[in-house]
């Protein structure tokens, strides 16, 4: 591995293409970021995953625009499309039609496509934000434990062990039950989102923390760190200017792989009724409703199921690709 880098996977495409072109002529002089990008580009599966993730993010960000384009509101009832006797859509395939491309929900006839689009917001928001919480906590605490060792390391490591052994899902479900309906200026769904992000993130940091601690343990004995230390560099400088840049690669990999896990946790919580509150759309909640009407309206179970499946698969493929690109010798 070459020198520490500031600029990893974020190298922009033009630059990378240029680098690849240059690479054909000159063998030397490529940063880790460029090497990784070149490798990533060769991994078609990872690229497909990456593109899907990008599309999903755009869908979530522009949800109001998209639903306006298809002319459907996610909370609008269309009970004229529901058979009052059974509560299921009258049309075939879950009521699919030119107006309702993915059909309508049983009982209330809300447009499934619009709700899937809005559901992406909840899934991605919780997925990303809770990963962010986990990464910040995990990196800071992991680096401190690894670098200083001693009682601090013992303390942080035991806390990590404890959290890893904690029944996370059960804890969140019981926590949601006691959290008030409004707090910190938030209400209803806002409170639920806040709690989910915080708690999923809090239980996620030991995974990053352990990796960072392990890497720090080996890095702190390296010559360049010794050199900095002997030149009288302060602790903060060593931690954040010498060690952290070399930790970026593993942190990036584990972050991309943590997001889909968080999305699944959110879906599970919503499925169990501990997620966002109605009428906010969420994939897990849709699955929960679908269970009741599964016999008569299997399409309604398939649609959110596929949405979750595609999202998680895309993140995983992309994350795998990033890992292979950053550390091709790494074992799984």
């Amino acid at each position, binding site marked *: 591995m070459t020198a520490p880098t500031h600029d990893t996977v974020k190298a922009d495409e033009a630059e990378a293409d240029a680098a690849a072109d240059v690479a054909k002529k000159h063998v030397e002089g490529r940063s880790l970021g460029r090497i990784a990008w070149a490798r990533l580009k060769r991994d078609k599966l990872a690229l497909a995953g990456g593109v899907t993730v990008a599309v999903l993010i755009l869908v979530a960000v522009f949800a109001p625009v998209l639903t306006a384009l298809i002319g459907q509101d996610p909370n609008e009832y269309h009970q004229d499309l529901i058979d009052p006797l059974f509560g299921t859509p009258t049309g075939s395939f879950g009521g699919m039609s030119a107006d309702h491309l993915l059909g309508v929900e049983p009982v209330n006839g809300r447009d499934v496509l619009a709700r899937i689009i809005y559901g992406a917001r909840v899934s991605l928001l919780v997925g990303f934000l809770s990963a962010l919480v986990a990464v910040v906590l995990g990196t800071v605490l992991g680096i401190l434990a690894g670098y200083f060792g001693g009682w601090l390391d013992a303390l942080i490591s035991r806390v990590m062990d404890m959290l890893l052994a904690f029944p996370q899902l059960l804890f969140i479900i019981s926590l949601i039950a006691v959290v008030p*309906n409004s707090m910190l200026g938030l209400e209803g769904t806002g409170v639920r989102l806040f709690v989910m992000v915080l708690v999923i993130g809090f239980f996620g940091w030991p995974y990053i923390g352990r990796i960072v601690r392990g890497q720090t343990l080996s890095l702190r004995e390296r010559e360049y760190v010794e050199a900095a230390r002997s030149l009288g560099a302060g602790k903060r400088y060593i931690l954040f200017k010498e060690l952290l840049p070399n930790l970026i690669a593993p942190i990036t990999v584990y972050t991309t792989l943590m997001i889909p896990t968080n999305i699944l946790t959110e879906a599970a919580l919503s499925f169990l009724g501990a997620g966002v509150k*109605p009428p906010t759309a969420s994939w897990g909640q849709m699955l929960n409703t679908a269970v009741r009407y599964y016999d008569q309206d299997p399409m309604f179970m398939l649609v959110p199921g596929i949405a979750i499946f595609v999202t998680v698969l895309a993140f995983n493929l992309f994350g795998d690709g990033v890992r292979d690109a950053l550390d091709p010798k790494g074992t799984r």
Partner: protein
Amino acid sequence: MRFLGTSRRRSAAASALVVGALLTTAACGGGNSDTNGDAAGYNAAISKVANESDKKGGTLKFIGVQDADSWDPTRGYYGFAWNFMRFYTRQLVTYAPEPGKAGNELVGDLAKSKAKISNDGKTYTYELKDDVTWQDGKPVTSKDIKYGIERQWAQDVLSGGPVYLKNVLDPDDEYEGPYKDKSKDKLGLDAIKTPDDKTIVFNLPKANSDFESMLAMAAASPVRQDKDTKSKYTLKPFSNGPYKFKDYSPNKKLVLVRNDEWKRSSDKVRAALPDKVTVTLITNPDELDKRLINGDYDVDLNATGLSPAGRAAALKQHKGNVDNPETGFIRYGVFPQSVKPFDNIHCRKAVIYGSDHKSIQTARGGPKAGGDIGTNMLPPVVPGSDPSWDPYGLRSNDGAANKKKAKEELKKCGKPNGFTTTIAVRNNKDVEVDSAEAMQASLKKVGIKAKIDEYDGAQIAGIVGNPDVVKKKNYGIIIMGWGPDFNSAQGYGKPLWHSDYILDNGNNNFAEIDDPKIDDAFAKFQSELDEKKKAKIAGELNKMVMEGAYYLPFTFEKMLTWRSSRLTNVYSTAAYSGQYDYVSLGVK
């Protein structure tokens, strides 16, 4: 399962498999031919008797997901348990074995006839039949009946059952119950006299025109003192009916066999056709529907109606096995007056007008499994009710919201731009959450922003039943349902509308109605012995409640029930919430 150590690609492959499996099972949903043979037809047991027969023998098989809260007649409060208890216990009077509303008629059971009422409705005298017996052959005496009723006073040992008789006969709570009774025969209650073994006299401190309906409840059954096992009585009640307990394991099964000492000549109510009655208890409602449809069992003991999946299978393939009775329940939203802005009648009316009644009905299961859109607050089974009286026009315009009127009322309430409130709904009732969402969606269109709060459905008494909690949590709309304990305005409405029933805990007067005119009407109702005049007062009560805009009725509830093709002598009775009259059932 966390991502460390496992291959992401491998787990991705696993999820692909799961979705694949989903697709395949989805493809084979439905289909399955009719194996049930000759069903009596859709609604064959509504207002008439299906498969009328007097053929004896066979085993009648109940299945349920919920055991009785207690099989002790003093303690049970589930409607299905009261219905079922008639297999092994009798009362002075009971409901006639007739389909539909005719089943509301009281007839003599242990008593030769209905009461001789004297002393301005304050004295009820009964004479017992000569050939009524216990399962050991001894006669049932008036003292056994008195002792059985006295058990209602022992609430510290025998809690949970209805206490109407206790409240009417001893309003000041002077008698301390048979277990603390100092008299030798433990029959110290002054209000009931037993001049001889065949005569019993009730002396009421104040007349109550529904008194005889209270005597028809299971909690007025005789219990023999030497057989009273107190809190263990639920395990093996001592029978005086056509069947007796043979085998009972709570939450698993119950087997009743014929009581040979019961004399058919003494009982004009119970057909007692099968030789054996069994109850099997499982935990999964969908499984219950499947087994019924398969023909493994005959009746759903709990009579809660088919679940959405079972409903579709039953109606599409075996419509002839399905009945659609009214349950006597009204499902409604109620507005606690202590929660602002529902102290203002116009804000209450705004919610009534602004709700889409059709979408709430669909959320509750539609016109068949949910019921007709409710119009007022007296269930159709209660005398004096008039389902067509629709003061707020809830059924007009196909149940759509009346936005114009809602906006007008909002202006009168001083909130022309709407307001914010919270809907409280039980978290264990999918249909109630669906109704809350439907209400939320339609109210939003008139500017009323409603949040939905799902509370623990096992904690009704301490959450929505506690006015302080309701106020603190800002529950402006509570979604609930109520059915009559006995079919009268008193049996239905008193706990909901009378000011005496505003309780600190376990409150049912959610609207916190404290109206002397309503209280007076109940007093008048209780002292009125003429059925026609009673019905008229019931109508007036209903009018006052509706004019106060305390309630938004959702549906006059109906349910879809399964009747196996083996069953004979089946009919739905208004006396037990539209359930089949269990004691009349037989099997082919």
